[in-house]
């Protein structure tokens, strides 16, 4: 059994973002593994612990993403591949999915698993695009996953509730919060991860075609409608002021 987990490195939510013209200014940014991808790593490891096989962590990005792969090693993956792209538009999901799909095709993976979305772009595209490129089924927003190497049964989040679905491997899955509790890397894991090899692949080795997105420009968030604190003597006073403000000023209710 071969399991590929997709690991994206993103700025920590708490880190401050300086907006450049076409990209953010990376100086001083703290990088983390996108939280949903941690669920994917954990699930990959758990499945291997049950059924045997190999878990390969793959990260696409510049040199810094090797750190994310070291963390994946420390958690317990067996192998790490760095798809090294320096001049990369992180928003271009079709380019990303093409490189990753080509890599996964060569690996002949039974299961591809990633987060339900990455928290920098919130696009929810790459994993399902990979499924389409590999001509395999996918299960999005998995909350529970059972996999015996062939048959896959999963409970997933759908609007208003959950759905249980069944399909056959090879399959691509996106992890939703609730799928598992990601383990913390052990100290021993962290130490040994430092020495493990990271395989590097370049876009031209993976048959990349051109990007399909053009970044016109980045800008700071639009200013909010300026706010004010209401003044009132008691709850009743606040309530009547709020109702008035929402109905007559904002006209939203």
């Amino acid at each position: 059994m071969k399991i590929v987990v997709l690991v994206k490195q993103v700025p920590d939510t708490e880190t401050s973002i300086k907006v450049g013209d076409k990209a953010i200014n990376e100086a001083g940014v703290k990088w983390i593994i996108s939280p949903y991808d941690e669920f994917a790593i954990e699930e990959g490891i758990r499945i291997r612990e049950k059924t045997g096989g190999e878990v390969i962590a793959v990260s696409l990005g510049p040199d810094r993403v090797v750190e994310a792969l070291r963390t994946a090693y420390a958690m317990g993956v067996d192998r790490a591949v760095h798809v090294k792209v320096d001049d990369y538009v992180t928003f271009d999901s079709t380019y990303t999915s093409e490189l990753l799909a080509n890599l996964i095709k060569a690996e002949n993976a039974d299961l591809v698993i990633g987060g339900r979305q990455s928290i920098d772009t919130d696009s929810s595209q790459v994993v399902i695009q990979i499924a389409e490129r590999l001509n395999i089924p996918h299960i999005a927003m998995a909350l529970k996953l059972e996999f015996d190497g062939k048959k896959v049964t999963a409970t997933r989040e759908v609007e208003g509730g959950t759905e249980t679905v069944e399909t056959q491997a090879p399959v691509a899955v996106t992890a939703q919060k609730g799928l598992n509790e990601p383990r913390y890397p052990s100290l021993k894991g962290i130490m040994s991860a430092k020495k493990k090899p990271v395989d590097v692949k370049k876009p031209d080795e993976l048959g990349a075609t051109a990007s399909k997105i053009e970044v016109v420009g980045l800008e700071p968030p639009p200013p909010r409608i300026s706010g004010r604190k209401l003044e009132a003597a008691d709850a009743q006073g606040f309530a009547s002021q709020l109702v008035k403000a929402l109905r007559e000023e904002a006209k939203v209710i």
Partner: protein
Amino acid sequence: MADVLIVGELKDGELKKISKELTSAGRKIADAIGGKVHAVIITDNVDKFAGDLKAAGADTIVGANLGDFNPEAYANGIYSIIQEKKPSVVLIPHSSQGKEYSARVAIKANAGIVADAVGLSVDGGKVVAKKPIYSGKAYANFKVTSDIQIFTVRANSQEVTPKDGAGAVEKSGATAGEVRTKSLSKDLSGGNKVQLADASIIVSGGRGIKGPENWPLLQDLADTLGAALGASRATVDAGWISHSHQVGQTGKTVSPNCYIACGISGAIQHLAGMGSSKYIVAINKDGDAPIFKVATYGVVADLFEVVPALTSEFKKVLG
């Protein structure tokens, strides 16, 4: 050809508002690039929606009978309609369904895609899509350079403006094609009465509500306003409410017209999910809570006093 194709969405057999939002947005794009607007609804009863979609600007209203939602079925069906209509722009809701099938449609159509757009404009014949990135700490503008430009669009981000299209109704012969995932069962019992992602008003509670026994206080206000019930992660982690209510980075992203945050501190991960709400009301005892930095109307007071007063005041004026 410079046509625009939009895909609408139904809920319990009724048209979701996003369908009209996308049709209106599509109309504006089509008028700018000189084309028609095709509105696709997955249903065998398309006539029912023709009036509303025509009024929002649809030139053709296409019904496609693809059965219950399955991402592969929808992708196959919608792609075959794209092949037939040859649009240059495709707008899809950034809903849980739309996110799923749009990815497959983009690959089938060999098209670039920008997901979760909140703004759409036209420059030099191409659409410019604006979207929040990095939890709303920046906004980015993108063009799609392929022949077909695909966008998924956030609910409540586009205005519905009345402008009649030609309004011709068509029934598509598109089929679901090969589908490899089988639905075994569904459980829709734990959800919201009003769906968070499309709600135009959300009443949301945080740790300040003290315990799960106090949700009825907020639910009462939500019911009065026809609003959805949201929650902070702290309340979900405490086991007070199901994760399906969680708003934020590890919950749902919402963009309502009005977000009423009750006893929520306004942590950055919470703001990541609701920061693009048009109007934000914060009810919090602590006047220094970060939520007040984004609130349009701040109420520094005890929610246990203000929320019931607010509910009864709204009941009075809304009748």
